[in-house]
C-alpha cells in the first residue's frame, strides 16, 4: 500500500537526539526523602501519568524535586528538562519559567536571553498539535504544585516576621 519509492519519513524535528536522551535517562526520577508538596498529572486521553513532588528549604527555594513520569518520549523528556530547569529555583522563578514554556508551546519565540535549557529542543512539537499536551503535562503538574507551594510559603511568612 505504501509507495515503494516514498522516502522513509523523518521525525528528527520532533524526536531530537537530546529529547531521546532525556527519554532514555530521565532526570529527577528518584525518591525524595521529604516533600512539602506533591501533584499528580494525568492526561486522560492517552494515559500519560506523572508524579511531581518538591521540597522547600528555609528560604523558600525548591531544594528538592522529584519528577516521575510514565508516558511517551515527549512527556517524559519534558519532565526531565523541567527537573534540570526548576530545581534550586524559587517558586516565583519557576512560575516565570512555566509561563515562558507555555507561551513557547503556543507559538511564541523563546525570549532573548531566557535560559530554557534543553527545552528549545521541544519546539518541534509545535508542528504536531495533538502532542503539545504531552510536552505541557509536566508543566501543568508543576503549576498545581507551585500553587500549593505558594500557599505554604504565604502561611509561613507572617510567623517569621512576627517578633
Amino acid at each position, binding site marked *: *500500500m*505504501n*509507495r515503494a519509492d*516514498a522516502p*522513509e*519519513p*523523518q*521525525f528528527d524535528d*520532533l*524526536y531530537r537526539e537530546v529529547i*531521546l536522551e532525556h527519554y532514555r535517562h530521565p532526570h529527577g526520577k528518584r525518591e525524595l526523602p521529604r516533600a512539602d508538596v506533591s501533584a499528580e498529572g494525568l492526561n486522560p*486521553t*492517552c*494515559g*500519560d*501519568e506523572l508524579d511531581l513532588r518538591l521540597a522547600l528549604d528555609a528560604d523558600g527555594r525548591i531544594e528538592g524535586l522529584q519528577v516521575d513520569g*510514565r*508516558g*511517551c*518520549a*515527549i512527556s*517524559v523528556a519534558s519532565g526531565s528538562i523541567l527537573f534540570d530547569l526548576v530545581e534550586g529555583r524559587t517558586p516565583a522563578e519557576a512560575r516565570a519559567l512555566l509561563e515562558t514554556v507555555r507561551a513557547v508551546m503556543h507559538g511564541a519565540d523563546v525570549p532573548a536571553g531566557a535560559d530554557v535549557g534543553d527545552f528549545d529542543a521541544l519546539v518541534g512539537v509545535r508542528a*504536531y498539535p495533538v*502532542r503539545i499536551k*504531552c510536552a505541557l503535562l509536566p508543566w501543568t503538574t508543576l503549576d498545581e504544585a507551585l500553587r500549593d507551594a505558594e500557599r505554604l510559603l504565604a502561611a509561613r511568612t507572617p510567623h517569621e516576621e512576627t517578633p
Partner: protein
Amino acid sequence: MSPSPASTAPRTLDVQRLRADFPILATEARGRPLVYLDSAATSQKPRSVIDALVAYYTTSNANVHRSVHHLAERATMQYEEARARVAAFANAAAPEHVVWTRGTTEAVNLVAAAWGRRNLRAGDAVLLTEMEHHSNLVPWQMLAKERNLRLRFVPVTDEGLLDLDAARARLAEGVRLFAFTAKSNVLGTANPTTELCALARANGAVTFVDAAQLAPHGRVDVRALGCDFLAFSAHKMLGPMGVGALVVNPERYDEMDPYQGGGEMIRRVRLEESTYAEPPLRFEAGTPAAGDAIAFAAALDYLEACGLDAVHEHEARLTRLALDLLHEEGVRTFGPADASLRAGIVSFEVPDVHPHDVSTVLDGRGIAVRAGHHCCQPLMRRLGVVATSRASFYLYNTEDEVRALAAGVRHVREYFGR
C-alpha cells in the same frame, strides 16, 4: 445507490472493488496513501451512506412524528422504515422493539436510568466485567452511588478471556443485572454471549449486551442471544455518527420509566402532569437524528450486501496475518493467542516505545492506529500497561495494509532503538 459488492461472489469480499465505494480511502495522509486501521474507533462511510444523508436533506427533511404535510409524512415514513431495517438486522420480533439512541453510550445511560432506577434497590448487585468500555462502567457506577448498589466484576484471565467460572459463581450469588460487552474493543475477544445470557437468565438476572464492537463484524440475533437489552452504534458499522439502536426485550418495557422528558415521548400533557407515549417513542424525547437514522439503514444495506459472514472471515484473516507479522517484529500483543477467539482488533506494545510515539511514527507513514487506553483504564491496569497501540480492521482493509503496519512497526523499533 445499491452497493456494488452485491454482484460479487457471495462468500468472499472483493476488497479492491468495494474500496472504491469509500471516498476517504482514496485520500492521502501526510503525503502518503491513507492506511486506515482505526475502524474500532469509527468506521469510514461508503458513498451510499453519504448519498443517503445528502438525499435526506435534499428531498425529505422535515420533523418526524409531528406535522401532516407531505414532507413530514415522507420523513416519518423513511425514519420508521429505518427502524424496521434495524429491527430486521438484529432479528428483533418487531420494529417497536428498537429504541433510537445517540449511540451505545446513551443506550447504557438510558437503561441505567429507565430500567435501573425503577428496579434496583439498595444492596442489589450489578455484575460487570473487567474488560468493559468506560461507557459500560461509569453509568453503573453513578447509579450504584445514587442507589447504594453493589458492583461486582467478572475478572479477565491472563489470556484475555472472561473467567467463566467466576461469572457462574457471581451469578449464582444473586445478581439483578449483568451488563457486559459481546466483544472487547481492546483485546478483540469475542465473549460467549449466548451462554452468558442463558446463565444470567437461569439465575434471574436481566442482561444488557454492549454490541458496539460485535454488530459491525458479525450477525446479531437478539432472539437467539436471549438478551434483555442490546445496543450498538451506527458510526462503527459504516453509518453516521450520532445515532444508534437499543434493542429491548418487550417484557422489559413494562418495567421501565421514561428516560428524558420532552416532545415526542408524551401522550397527553397538562400543566401539572403528563401521560406518555407507548414504547419506543416513550424513550425518544425531542427531535431525533432522522437523517442519520435513515442513512444508518443504507449502511445496513451495504453491510448485508457484502455479507456479514464474509466480513467476519475477511477480518479474521487479516487478524491472523497481523498477529503473525507483529510477533515476527518482536512486538507483544494482547488478547487470546487463538485467533478464532477474536477478530478485527489487535492491541500491541512495542518494547520500550510508548504507544503515542508508535502512533506518531506510523502516522508519518500514513498509517492510522489508535494509541491510548481505549476508554478502558481498568483493563489497562489489569494488563499491567498504561496504554497500548491498537490496529483494527474492517471490510475495506487489505493484506498489504497489514504488511504496511508491520513495516511501520519495524521502522518504529529501528528509530527508537538508535
